[in-house]
């Protein structure tokens, strides 16, 4: 019996990739525009959010996370959580110590 490969062996056309590419270009334009208007301290937050949307599109479609196993998704979630906790804890220290 041949087991189904866990690898994403589905054949996708070019279309979804071109759509993501167009979205990434549009979001790059938006991020430059947002930086031009003065949002004060929220400007950087908006731009990090836009970057995260772009990164999610790349991971989900270009890197095929959409078709990956639950285990891989869980691993990625664990890594991103570790990074987030590190950043939050560091800022707790930096903001309240000085």
């Amino acid at each position: 019996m041949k087991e189904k490969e866990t690898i994403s062996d589905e054949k996708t056309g070019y279309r979804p990739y071109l759509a993501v590419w167009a979205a990434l270009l549009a979001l790059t334009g938006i991020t430059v525009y947002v930086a031009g208007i003065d949002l004060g301290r929220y400007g950087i937050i908006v731009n990090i959010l836009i970057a995260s949307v772009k990164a999610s599109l790349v991971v989900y479609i270009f890197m095929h996370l959409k078709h990956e196993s639950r285990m891989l998704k869980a691993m990625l979630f664990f890594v991103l959580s570790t990074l987030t906790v590190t950043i939050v804890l560091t800022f707790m220290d930096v903001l309240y110590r000085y």
Partner: protein
Amino acid sequence: MERAAAADINAANHRDYAGAKLGMWIFLFTELLFFGGLFLLYAVYRSKYLAEFQNAATELNITIGAINTLILITSSLTMALSLSALKSGKKGHSLLFQALTIIFASAFLVVKYFEWTAKFSHGIWPGSPELTSQGEIIFYSLYFVMTGLHGLHVIIGIVAFAIILAMTNKNIINEGDYIKLENGGLYWHLVDIIWIYLFPLIYLIQ
């Protein structure tokens, strides 16, 4: 039954796609935490030297940064398309898209070269006497370290894709065995993601 399974594993043509890809992802996780540490350093110093960071960033050219962003995003597209093409049995398309990826990656480095040269000619490099305030010194140290390490990843990518291109051409990488191309693509998309964050954090904070 068990012996048959063992024989299958020892067969010369045995391939472990899931394992190969998982290995690549684990490597990418270490890369994420590696750059994550630098982003953390950036974030802490930015909160400490906010005005000086914003002031130092005005020396950077947003247009050049945006052009490089477009180049890198497009190279990520051609990389994804090359895998999609190979899976559908279109070897010619795949080779073309791989070649385009290498060209875009090289273009990114050429732009970077001119950008760095311009910085040097304005007296901006790590340890330059023209950088006076503490915040400015730290900003440009992080600028050169982060874009430099990112650039190093781009160079490694170009070398890897040249090898992958040759292997695809010789049918070592083919419609039924494309894990090397897929892993190369995963690496390249991560390099793209790092830049997606570097661009707003370094160029767009003026």
